[in-house]
């Protein structure tokens, strides 16, 4: 069965029970966000971007199966 791999980073990782976990496959990133918000209400108040297979996305993006999703709070390297 298809599933998503979700990886959380920075402060987001601290708000979730696990840094990396499987999540049921979703149709697109909007559906995914809503499902994540239902599962982890803490995320609603947090500022983060999504990456699908290591590419930052700016708009709703169709998911085809088994993607790697990353939850990325604002970057603070350097």
């Amino acid at each position, binding site marked *: 069965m298809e599933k998503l791999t979700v990886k959380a*980073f920075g402060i987001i990782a601290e708000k979730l029970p696990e840094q990396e976990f499987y999540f049921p496959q979703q149709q697109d990133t909007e559906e995914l966000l809503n499902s994540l918000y239902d599962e982890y209400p803490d995320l609603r108040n947090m500022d983060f971007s999504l990456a699908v297979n290591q590419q930052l996305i700016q708009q709703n993006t169709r998911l085809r199966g088994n993607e790697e999703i990353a939850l990325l*709070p604002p970057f*603070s*390297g*350097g």
Partner: protein
Amino acid sequence: MTRKPKNIFVEGPISSEKIAQSIQNHSAKTNIGAHSIFLGQVRADEKEGSVVSAIEYTAYEEMALLKAFEIREAIFEKYELTCMHIYHSLGEVKTGEICLFVFTSSKHREMAIDACEELVERIKNELPVWGKELLENQGEKWKVNT
């Protein structure tokens, strides 16, 4: 020859020996007339009634390396550079230690300086890297880039 993503991450602080060695490694490339170097150092900011003692860096490494490669290609395209090196720390770096080392080399100073500056800005804005400030009172605070 096509370039491939290179590792940019160094565990812990970047030593002054590494920086010196990196400069030394370029002495054979005699078409270089200018190096520009940026060094980021961990600052002892006052935070929440305490003082930063170190920053602990984490990254989404696979994505950061892809992004660093993309930035690298764009900078090589835009400026006439002989070479370019990027090193970023992961893990704990104490105040006063170096966490970012960016090195550009060119025939003339203008290209080296401009490329270095743009590279540093893009690294800070676009690489999925996070710093957590560790405070002297054992507190922690996620760093915010300004």
